[in-house]
């Protein structure tokens, strides 16, 4: 009977594929949020598997802060072209230029929070009603409480106190015009699962995940990539280091650390020995407040 037993990765994959198909079947205009990070790379891979041999039945959307790692943008374009999928770009720069959002200034300026406006605008303009995201419950405590099918009202808001109960594998995708659902197919995956799956499936990732030489400066115990996008304090000296990034977001809010892990197998070994969570290790934005993520999510953030 042992052949009837699924490995945990196969069981997680089956659950995610089920969720993706269910959301597409119940929605009118789905879209998949793709940042170029490892979680969205896995999500996109799962979506491709879910509809094989048909092509991806929905476009891919990137919220571009204008401060992305160039390697990540290259990766994004290559992957999307490889799938023959349509790419929708929601631009933070455009939102700033049009005066819809106001840019923060100073060395701590981040465009992270500014992503919400162009994201919601793109959802409205394109009439997307199912928006796939790569959020995982193990990565952050507000995410841990979010549903797989997470309802958003006409303002894109999340109301954590008024979520739809989710039982068995019965997902409720009903919504009215103007409302949408954020759907998180990899809710039950952990960082370790993601890496093991990347290894098993041989999923391509942007090069910044792997050890490389780079000009950096130190801030809050993290090694930030030196670039035109971040203003440095006077005491912050730039030096060259061998680093990698454990999560990949915008350059202004993603910190790296010294690492020689150059392959997925070496990363798995490094992650399993780590005593710090990936957000604690690499996300400047979450260090600011205990409820930073919940507050952003209420406004309509990822």
């Amino acid at each position, binding site marked *: 009977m042992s052949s009837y037993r699924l490995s945990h990765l196969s069981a997680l994959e089956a659950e995610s594929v089920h969720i993706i198909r269910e959301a597409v079947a119940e929605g009118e205009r789905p879209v998949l949020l793709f940042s170029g990070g490892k979680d969205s790379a896995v999500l996109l891979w799962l979506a491709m598997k879910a509809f094989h041999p048909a092509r991806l039945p929905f476009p891919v959307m990137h919220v571009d802060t204008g401060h992305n790692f160039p390697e990540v943008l290259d990766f994004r374009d290559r992957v999307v072209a490889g799938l023959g999928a349509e790419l929708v770009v929601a631009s933070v720069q455009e939102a700033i230029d049009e005066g819809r959002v106001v840019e923060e200034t100073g060395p701590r300026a981040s465009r992270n929070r500014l992503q919400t406006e162009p994201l919601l605008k793109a959802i409205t303009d394109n009439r997307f009603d199912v928006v796939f995201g790569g959020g995982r419950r193990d990565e952050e405590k507000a995410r841990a409480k979010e549903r797989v099918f997470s309802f958003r009202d006409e303002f894109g808001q999340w109301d954590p106190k008024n979520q739809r109960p*989710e039982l068995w594998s019965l997902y409720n995708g009903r919504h009215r015009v103007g409302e949408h659902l954020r759907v998180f197919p990899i809710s039950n995956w*952990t960082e370790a699962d993601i890496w093991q799956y990347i290894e098993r499936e041989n999923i391509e990732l942007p090069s910044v995940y792997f050890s490389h030489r780079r000009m950096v400066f130190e801030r809050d115990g993290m090694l930030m990539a030196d670039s035109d996008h971040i203003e440095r304090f006077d005491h912050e000296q730039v030096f060259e280091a061998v680093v990698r990034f454990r999560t990949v977001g915008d350059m202004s809010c993603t910190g790296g650390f010294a690492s020689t892990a150059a392959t997925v197998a070496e990363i798995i070994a490094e992650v399993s020995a780590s005593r710090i969570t990936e957000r604690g290790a690499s996300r400047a934005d979450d260090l600011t407040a205990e409820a930073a993520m919940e507050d952003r999510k209420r406004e309509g953030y990822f």
Partner: protein
Amino acid sequence: MSVELVRLATTGSVDDGKSTLIGRMLYDTKQIFQDQMEAIELASKNRGTDYVDLALLTDGLRAEREQGITIDVAYRYFATPKRKFVLADTPGHIQYTRNMVTGASTADIALVLVDARAGILEQTRRHAFIASLLRVPHLVLCVNKMDLVDYSEERYNEIVEEFTEFATRLDIHDLRFVPVSALHGDNVVDESERTPWYAGPSVLHLLENIYVASDRNLIDVRFPVQYVVRPHRMEYQDYRGYAGTVVGGVLKPGDDVRVLPSGFEGKIKGIDTYDGPVDEAVPPMSVTIRLENDLDISRGDMICRPHNQPEVGQDIDAMVCWLTDASSLRRGAKYAIKHTTRWARALVGDLRYRLDINTLHRDEEADLLSLNEIGRIRLRTTQPLFYDEYRRNRETGSFILVDESTNATVAAGMILGAAQ
């Protein structure tokens, strides 16, 4: 060796030492990270508590932290070399019954805690009842705080006896007991020397070894069609596949199948995945089935075997748990119903009784079900459902009711059978 995915539900209050037990398992399996530990140490100190409150790990919402309570199901993850666990941790108070029902709906194993000093309380019975109602296949009763009863074998046996007696009224097919001190770590991860009279395994050892693979129904083939795959690509011009998740039985190429509601019969030509065709598909695999002949099949249809098909009907008896405080369930009300991959509308024909989940007393005079209440109803649906009794198959035996004006999920249902 491959790692197996196992889903747990824990329930109980802080008083039972549940957080301590979970915290210890997470800590001892190295799932709590340094920055998380520092954050909750700091948060505990800010709140003036003199112990590290592990609930702060997952009580992520502002309202939860402000009020110091767990409002929602908290999902936690931990892994051992043998298994990866998805743990749905639910608060134990009666006003959170709906959270318990949610957590138990997918669980392979339920962990119920009792305080060895207090013994079996009303809430213990309620937790056990919910686990049995939701058909969690394995129930582990952790008799906690054994240190406070001097690791007394006699006290432990009293509790085991009392619970076993109560459990005969429920439908629990695998019941285990472990004497535990979560605070001191006795029988949590390692077997304790302070309970020499207990020859059984520790809690973690049980969780790692309870055989869960056989809990799936591998007899009755059930494949609700989720999505029809039509590639519209030159190389797959005539491809027509039925994508879905196997929720019962074993499907193989060459098998004869029947499709509901049409009743058409055919043969499986192939079972596809992205990684190539497979020789067989079992629960909970997500696959795409091709048939030899062209049949008109769409989402919501059910593929089964010609001589083993689910019940087909529109008049159904079910147990339901009401999930919202915005309204109550009443006779004559209409809802949207989702069952497998099928939506229909349902009319509540009758509320047979409301169950007192503490005493199991049936109140046949009840005329409504409010938040957290459980009762037996009769439903009439606009279209036939293809269902099994919930006790035979949790996937084809469950449904949700949705309020058509708000689109909120208002009830969780477990099918008993055709209306009597």
